[in-house]
């Protein structure tokens, strides 16, 4: 059993270098550790200048997404032992995002896309809080629950070649979240979101590669959400052409 394991980590210090380089660290091999534990060992014991994001260490906050051996990965969720045979473990920042420093990416483009799809409950008439909550049945919850599990870790953006080829593409997580609200029985904002996502950079940019779903650590299935969205849009279009009175407004 190996006593140490090598991590090859991407470094980018904009004040020192014009493009990322790699630095290798030897860390103790502990089969109880996840990749993030190894990175924290480097930070605490070997090199305090290494910069990366993390917070909850339990797959909830979505902060610690990185490329591990070329695959977008939530580093708090994968054991170090999974990579023993592929040593050294190559760790890089999420691809298709600008790098701020070392493993930290600039997520502003993602946040802009996310807010553009209005991921909140939209009501035609908002009732005052004293009238109580908008209730729904377990069956109504079940319809959208899978898509509500997204933790905005952005792994799906890093896995999507369309995002790499067309950076303006709204992208998997944002469209999946739009679909999550569309399917929510309490929401009435589907038409508003459709107007945004029917544009050039919206859902039709997706070519259904499907890798976003493969890398999702919460089994959200963004590829599925986007295809359902396309079906809804196409159905709406056919209704508006064939049955002008049947189109959803």
């Amino acid at each position, binding site marked *: 059993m190996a006593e140490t394991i090598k991590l090859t980590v991407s470094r980018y210090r904009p004040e020192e270098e014009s493009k990322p380089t790699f630095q290798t660290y030897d860390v103790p091999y502990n089969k109880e550790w996840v990749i993030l534990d190894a990175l924290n060992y480097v930070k605490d014991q070997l090199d305090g200048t290494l910069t990366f994001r993390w917070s909850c260490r339990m797959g909830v906050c979505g902060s610690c997404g990185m490329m591990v051996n070329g695959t977008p990965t939530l580093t708090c969720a994968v054991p170090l032992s999974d990579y023993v045979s592929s040593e050294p473990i190559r760790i890089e920042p999420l691809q298709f995002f600008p790098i701020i420093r070392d493993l930290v990416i600039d997520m502003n483009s993602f946040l802009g896309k996310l807010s553009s799809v209005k991921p909140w409950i939209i009501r035609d008439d908002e009732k005052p809080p004293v009238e109580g909550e908008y209730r729904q049945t377990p069956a109504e919850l079940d*319809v959208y629950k899978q898509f509500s599990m997204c933790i905005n870790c952005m792994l799906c953006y890093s896995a999507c070649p369309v995002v790499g080829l067309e950076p303006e593409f709204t992208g998997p997580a944002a469209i999946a979240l739009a679909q999550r609200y569309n399917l929510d029985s309490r929401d009435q904002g589907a038409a508003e979101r459709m107007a945004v996502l029917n544009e050039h950079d919206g859902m039709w940019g997706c070519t*259904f*590669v*499907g890798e976003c779903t*493969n890398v999702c650590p919460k089994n959200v299935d963004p*590829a599925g959400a986007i295809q*359902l969205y396309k079906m809804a849009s196409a159905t709406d279009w056919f209704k508006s052409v064939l049955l002008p009175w049947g189109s959803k407004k």
Partner: protein
Amino acid sequence: MPFWWWLQKRVYFNFILRELTCVFVGVFAVLTLLQIQALANGPDAYAEFINRLRTPGLILFNSVGLAALLLHAVTWFKAVPTTITVRFRETRVPDHVIAGLHYVGWMVVSAVVAWFLWPS
């Protein structure tokens, strides 16, 4: 993104393969239309068309085309449950049932076409 990005991962390669095989779907559709046209032009024209199909080059082309077509159909049928969500009495119909129904539909349509085309 490098031009060869689709060679970086098997998933990307499979995606490109699935998309490119649609060319053969189009070619087969054109071939069927030409066959119908030959049929409309009379027995001699149809016999000539069939003879041309029996040349080694076209047999090879059609064999490759058929393989591509099968790959195209199978990969899309595999993807269908992702695009169609059916709920029956508040329960989501399992993916394999939706995919299975598509295969059944494919077989039924193929059987009907074969029944029409099979020489009596």
